[in-house]
């Protein structure tokens, strides 16, 4: 699987990263080197193997379906959270109520 500058540009777009031409060139080389190693996984037959996403639920309970996660749930009650003031405190630009950002749509 050979990655090209076009692939890097596409992925950078998806990831909302604007790379400089220098960064982009280096990324092509790095990604190819890394992905070359990843191809090793194709040596393995995983046809009937379940993917593993997390380890805790299997240990914590023997439930089926969504009951597996019963231990992680709570009653649907409103509890205090971060105040608006604290939530806005690290924002680069606010009007005291919302986060302010540059315009979304070009007219």
């Amino acid at each position, binding site marked *: 699987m050979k990655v090209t500058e076009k692939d890097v540009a596409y992925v950078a777009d998806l990831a909302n*990263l604007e*790379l400089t031409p220098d960064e982009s060139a280096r990324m092509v080389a790095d990604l190819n080197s890394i992905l070359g190693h990843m191809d*090793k996984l194709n040596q*393995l037959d995983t046809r009937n193997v379940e993917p593993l996403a997390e*380890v805790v639920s299997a*240990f914590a309970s023997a439930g089926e379906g969504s009951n597996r996660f019963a231990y992680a749930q709570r009653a649907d009650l409103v509890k205090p959270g971060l105040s608006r003031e604290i939530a806005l405190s690290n924002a*680069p630009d606010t009007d005291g109520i919302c986060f302010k950002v540059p315009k979304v749509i070009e007219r």
Partner: protein
Amino acid sequence: MNIDALNIGALTIDAARSLVQSREVSAQALTEAHYAQIAERDGTIGSFLTLTKERALKQAERIDRLAEKGDPLPPLAGVPVGIKDVLMTRGERTTAGSRFLEKFIAPYDATAVERLETAGAVCLGKLNCDEFAMGSSNENSAFHPVRNPRDITRVPGGSSGGSAAAVAAGFAVATLGSDTGGSIRQPAAFCGVVGLLPTYGRVSRYGLIAFASSLDHVGPLTRTVKDSATLLEVIAGRDPMDSTSADVPAIKYSAECGRDIKGLRIGIPKEYFAEGLDPEIREAIERRIDGLRKAGCEIVNVSLPHTEYAIPVYYIVATAEASANLARFDGVRYTTRSPQTKTLADMYRKSRDEGFGAEVKRRILLGTYALSAGYYDAYYLKAQQVRTLLTRDFQNAFTSVDAVVTPVTPTPAFRLGEKTGDPMEMYLSDIYTVTANLVGVPGISIPCGKNREGLPLGIQILGKLFDEATVIRLADAMEQEQQ
């Protein structure tokens, strides 16, 4: 007691606490003595990014007042600790080692931090780390690298380089780090301290700035195994604020220290002792295995056949999860925003490109690629399936042994700049540590000697899910045997 006569660089948790309880040394004096060491020598080491003096002295004063009243003190009373800068500390700067968060003030405390301070620990400051915990040498910190206190031309390891260095250098009695692929255990090995990886879900991740949510673990770095057990007791346990924290009761882990290890079955996985392992590390580990044999343990050869696939699995899963977790750093909410961008899309892209370092960008791109349409099945799904195969390897091994002993790193601490040319070379050095995170099992790295150049060597013990007790018992015995 004259504090200058005290060797604070050798203090354990018990020793520090008893000085404070008996009022031989006040918590305030102990805190100031640590800050004096930091002022004198951390310029060279670079372990701290932020000192939290006001918070520390306020806590120390509170502890001293309790001590004056003669009340029994909480378990970590007056013990000076450092916190890796990926953990939130309310009201203090929390950077994750990144320029993106250079000015970010944490709005709340991580649960692990809160539990330490409720137990009386004195938070000295925030420790340097690789940016967003991505790295194995602390050279990816956006601010400055950390140097290994045992040899300042060498790396301390990463990503919890500051956490390991601070304990080794005598700047803190204990520290908190995080481990996603080895980031507690590897720097512990490089710096000659103890690093504990609790089982996934053993310690709450609430307030840990996420790198890879299914692989991140919070854990302690300390001078002794008993200290790591003591810290684990304080921070372990179900947290309603972290839905992945396990509903499994924590026990008194420090009571495992000193218990007999006779009859325990120890697995030696052949795949971890193949080519590429430094001969002095191999020799040091073999001496420790001999010690276990003499103490009455049964040594069993085992196989973990999918070991060679762990690195590709790790770098797909971890980077995929990281690409999702770091999407939130978009210039909207977390301090950094690129100046003079005209549209929202521009703001997202430029803020991220300016705020993130090269390694972070590399991993975000790799992760995004692995998850993108057309590649998801080939990379991410495949990796998650191989993760199941790795888990079965351990389940099989654990039917015939109680724990597994392995190296932590293929070499001792390398020199600054030595591995920064090729990312793959750095990634391959994680070979002995990543599997534990993929499978979720607990582990510990403890010192097992020094090489001819005086560099620390580490040994790793891995245990069954939620069996930190056996890991601690074995590690303590191994530590005592070396005294």
